[in-house]
């Protein structure tokens, strides 16, 4: 689903440039539940941004759904994001003047789904994250956990291939963290590829595979207990 070969990325800082990603190789198959671990500055957010087509890489190859990503303009990137990717952000990034339902329906609007149809789909996904009764509420009337569940419903609405979650629990307490992780796990069980970025060990433990980044290079890539048991089941 996601294949990265020799990926480099630098950011210009004044006259110098900061080399953030130093030759990454990573292959994530369809249906995997992967977490990228690393302290701040390790380059994990940069990796997610490149994978999420929110940013472009300098050197190397990136294949999304077996399609080589190169020379992307904003328009093409927007179409690919809408088609293949669903985002969950640390700070939720809900549009404050839209209700929960409208927020979930927004990616469907950009996909070109009719109003009636997209509100119906949006409600289905809100119910899936157990927020049906909150459909008409504005984001500032919801708790942090509820906001993140709305964001997850929004990410799911277009039936993407991959869910990209950037510190999805970073702004949540431990109870809500668990409920959000359970939700992501459930989504993964349904066959969707889930790609989580975190610096919390407990969160990473709940995924199937942990990739550790340090100073722009992968220092380890191993399966967790649950990942191992899943792998055994397949065998």
């Amino acid at each position, binding site marked *: 689903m996601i294949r990265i070969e020799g990926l480099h990325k630098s950011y210009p800082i004044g006259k110098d440039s900061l080399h953030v990603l130093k030759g990454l190789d990573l292959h994530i198959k369809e249906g995997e539940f992967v977490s990228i671990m690393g302290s701040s500055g390790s380059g994990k957010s940069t990796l997610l*941004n490149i994978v*999420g087509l*929110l*940013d472009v890489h300098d050197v190397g190859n990136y294949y999304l759904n077996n399609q080589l990503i190169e020379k992307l303009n*904003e*328009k093409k990137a*927007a*179409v690919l*994001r*809408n*088609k293949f990717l669903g*985002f969950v*952000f640390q700070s939720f*990034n*809900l*549009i*404050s*003047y*839209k209700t929960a339902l*409208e927020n979930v329906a*927004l*990616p469907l*609007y*950009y*996909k070109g789904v009719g*109003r009636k149809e997209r509100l119906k789909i949006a409600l289905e996904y809100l119910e899936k994250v157990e927020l049906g009764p909150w459909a008409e509420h504005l984001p500032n009337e919801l708790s942090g956990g509820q906001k993140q569940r709305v964001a997850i419903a*929004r990410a799911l609405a*277009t039936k993407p291939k991959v869910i990209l979650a950037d510190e999805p629990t970073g702004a949540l307490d431990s109870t809500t963290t668990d409920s959000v992780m359970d939700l992501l796990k459930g989504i993964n069980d349904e066959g969707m590829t889930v790609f989580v970025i975190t610096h919390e060990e407990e969160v990473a433990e709940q995924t199937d595979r942990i990739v550790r980044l340090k100073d722009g290079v992968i220092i380890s890539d191993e399966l967790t207990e649950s990942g191992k048991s899943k792998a055994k089941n397949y065998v």
Partner: protein
Amino acid sequence: MFDLDAWREIFQSINKNKLRAMLSGFTVAFAILLFTLLFGIVNGLQNFFTQAFVDDADNSMFVRTWQTSKPYKGLQSGRRIQLKNEHLDYIVEAHPEKIQHISARKYLNVRITYKTKQDNYNIRAVHPDHRYLEKTIIDEGRFLNQLDLNQKNKVIVIGRLVKKDLFGERIALGKYVNVNDISYKIVGVFSDEGGDREERNVYMPITTAQSLYGNNDYIDNILIGYNPRLTIDRAVAFGNRLERELRQKLNIHPDDQSALSIRNMAEANKNVGQLTTALFFIVIFVGSGTLIAGVIGISNIMIFSIKERTKEFGIRKALGAKPASIISMVVKESLLITSIAGYLGLVLGTFILSQIGDSLEKYFIYNPSVSSGIVIGATVTLIIAGLLAGYLPAKKAAQIKPIVALRAD
């Protein structure tokens, strides 16, 4: 082209940012309002000046004489200058192609009696052309004609108020009245836009007046209507030349202003024209200043609001919005606000002007109004400015990488 969903997005965005929408709307509405009022008031000034000269024909010249103040060719100062028939005849013969109408005017103060009613009135003894020079309006009967002059008929044309004084509501036409004990027939009743004083005048043939009152060929003034095909500059030159010629004929010192003067409407027209031109440039200057202020106002608000929404655009892009859809959303929003606000400003301005009407006449503003072309042009200018003011920053915002936009706060 009409995309209901897109407009729903726009209405929602405007609705959730009422203050911003109102501020930019207010800027536009206020600019158009000021522009409309400004243009209207200048038009009112022009109307006033045009109206101020409407009483007499706008191509008229008025020759008047008094006493000399300078000795000339052995003649003493203090000599009374008397115009005579020969001067009028000279003007007609010397400049036939430059003259449209000409009339002498001789003043008499008389007592007019009808049955038991009587009063004092001013008589103007004139030629038939006088009616065009004074813009006399014939209500009943006719004005004096050449036959009256040739036969020195004892006929008069009376003003509307003279008829009211002497006859009330009864018929005056065809009746005989006594003018200083000589019987005259009323052949016409006139009115005049110059006001009540004009309508208390009485006209009689110049020849009748000259033979019955003094038996001479004296006249007091000469009124000339110059050929309207003359340009203003040529008409002014004609007036000056006539003045020189008459001074020579009457032996007046060329610089003796108090002996003879010609009031030439061409000069007044020229002055009004210059005033109007000056006003026009002032309006262009202040009007475009108002519009520029409006444009800057919208631009500021748009730039600020787009900056404020950078993050929202980032979210929308992460969810699959193409740059074009974001630009189109912002531009349509700006277009909608400026159009509605511009229209409101225009309607309000026109309404205020129509309420002013002629109530500011004592401030030289009469019936201020604006031509719809100018204000619509101004509104369209502002709408286009609003479009650009939305488009440029929106284009820039839409080109920001979503990752940068998402980081914005």
